[in-house]
């Protein structure tokens, strides 16, 4: 095509397409949901089928506090993204760091629970079917929380250096989508492990 008149018809007056960052993150969330679904199915399938060892009702303690931490971090990250969209960088930074702290608390809670399960009750991934499915499912979720925290930290570092402004709010929203997903998965895992599975 050289410098001749454009042979194509006239463009429509409005032509807006979805944001590719959000579409891509939605795609990733769908794929990850499928992975988690399979682990949840395995967990539910094996409920009550362990041939030996500690059972869920014997050893599990409902992690109410750390669940509240994680779920409220969804509220704080939502607030942070909203603040950045309104160019309130200070509020954004504060809420963002609070999100990281709450996420970190959740991981600490998981670590504490695992320590208790391993050393007090002798439940490991190889103990029985409950051990295998529990550590895999909660561990997979914990891995995703960790990955999310790393990404949040990277943004925090750039924010502290003053590089995150209203123009970046779109990218921050995409990251927030991921964080909401991680929280939603926890709701499912919590229900399956601590409510249904006992």
């Amino acid at each position: 095509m050289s410098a001749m008149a454009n042979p194509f018809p006239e463009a429509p007056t409005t032509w807006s397409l979805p944001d590719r960052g959000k579409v891509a993150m939605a795609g990733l969330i769908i794929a990850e949901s499928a992975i988690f679904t399979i682990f949840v199915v395995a967990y539910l399938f094996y409920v009550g089928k362990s041939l030996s060892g500690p059972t869920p009702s014997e050893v599990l303690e409902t992690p109410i506090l750390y669940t509240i931490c994680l779920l409220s971090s969804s509220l704080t990250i939502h607030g942070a993204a909203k603040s950045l969209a309104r160019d309130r960088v200070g509020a954004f930074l504060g809420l963002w760091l609070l999100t990281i702290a709450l996420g970190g608390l959740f991981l600490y809670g998981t670590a504490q629970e695992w320590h208790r399960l391993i050393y007090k009750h002798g439940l490991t991934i190889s103990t029985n079917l409950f051990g295998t499915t529990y550590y895999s499912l909660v561990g997979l979720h914990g891995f995703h929380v960790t990955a999310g925290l790393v990404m949040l930290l990277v943004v925090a570092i750039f924010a502290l250096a003053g590089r995150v402004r209203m123009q970046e709010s779109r990218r921050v929203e995409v990251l927030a989508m991921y964080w909401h997903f991680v929280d939603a998965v926890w709701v499912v895992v919590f229900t399956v492990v601590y409510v249904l599975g006992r």
Partner: protein
Amino acid sequence: MSSSAITIPGVQIEDKPWVDTLHEWVTTVDHKRLGVLYILYALLFLVVAGVEALIIRIQLMFPHNHFVSPQVFNRLFTMHGTTMVFFMGMPILFGFANYLVPLMIGARDMAFPRLNAFSFWLSALGGFLFYFSLVGANGLYGAGNAPDVGWWAYAPLTARAFSAGHSTDYWALALLVSGFGSIGTAINIIATILCMRCPGMKLSRMPLLAWLNLVMSGMVLISVSPLTAAQIMLVIDRYLGGHFFDTQAGGSAMLWMHFFWIFGHPEVYILIIPCFAFMSEIIPVFSRKPIFGYPVMVAATVCIGFVSMSVWAHHMFSVGMNSYANSFFTITTMAVGVPTGIKIFNWLGTMWGGRIQFKVPMLFSIGFLFQFLIAGLTGVMLGSAAFASQLTLSYFVVAHFHYTLVGGVVFGVFAAIYYWYPKITGRMLNETLGKWHFWLFVIGFHLTFDLMHIPGLLGMPRRIYTYEPGRGWDTLNLIISIGAFIQAIAILAFVANLIISYLKGAKAGNDPWDAWTLEWSISSPPPPYNFATVPTVASRRPLWDLKRPEDPDSRYE
């Protein structure tokens, strides 16, 4: 292939040192180059897996043959199946999607070029890792640790107790890695199609190739993940003492089967849907008519996408599910044949009343239609659970899926290569060599895979390195093997054609086929930026409108 320099009339372009060209290709994020890399990578593995198949067929030529040991044979069919599905089928189709989707929707590149490159190299790493197993640990003598558990890797055969060493680990890890690459590319394709279409290209005006790759990518997201999950579970079993599939600890071998086939069945639709896309672009052009029933073709594909998620246990009709489960999967399997049949009828309707040109892409497309019809019908037989109790796990199934995968996917890919090679390289493939390729391949294909149904009906099971004489399988296996060699000769003609035409083929020009989609509006090969001016479209066949301004499609849509 495409020069990275901008073409400026009257200016000499100096020859670049080969190292620079190599560096450009290795670091490229251009969707066209990545597309070519995917396709070349896949063609390499087509030859490798093809050689594996030939060795298998030599071993099976005669009963009690000793060409290879049982250990080597079991590795061969594992490698052949895994390679063809994951390192030939998926890459070549992703390659075409990469190359064509941005061009057909009027975009300058994919939505995420760097993710695109990363996904390609991840997939490539997977293939490399898989074949590294041949030299891992014990080296080439004894084929090292090549996986020998079959491409479906059923538990508990894959447990440490029954698969010592690392062969199964290579299988799991190679596919985990390339699976991440596939998910990355699928996300990229979806984002590109939804967010980067040129002005005027509403979803209802998109070429069917774009639609079908959208559906295929959605399916990749949902169905590759179960395989990833299952493989993570397998690795946990093998290395962390987990019991997911440990039947001694109360685990279930069936669970692996369910997870694998929840991936495995949509996977074969993932492989065929892009070939449906090729048919939907090629058949109209060589029939000189638009595709018959565009909206129905879209609806049927979406329908296939959804229904194919519900059929997976027809691969498990022998495992002892109860009669209600078997009946359920019978009806869903047969149901998915309805939209597939509708597509065949629509292609027939496209050809009907047309003026068919029998160029090589059309020859392969016609072969596809006949073969996919037969494959679909043997699929209906296999979908009937009671009938399948005899047919499954026998050579009837091997014949059926090779009919779909070779007669369908490979023929579709050949059609696509002959059709788009001029666009990619700027040169036409040789018609005479192409016809030799086609006819030799058709004859070899039918000799092998038509006859292969019969040993299955006579009780020959799958995955056996040898068989007893006097079961009625001897002569059939011999002829089947001969057919395989005829196909190999056809592939040689094909490879020769690719190389000779690249060096000496006739110049193609922008639009050698008089086609109607946007990729034919730019030069062959296209410039790196694709479109100097972003196009706008008002119908499904923008170039038809341009060539026939007195009677544009936009009037009828």
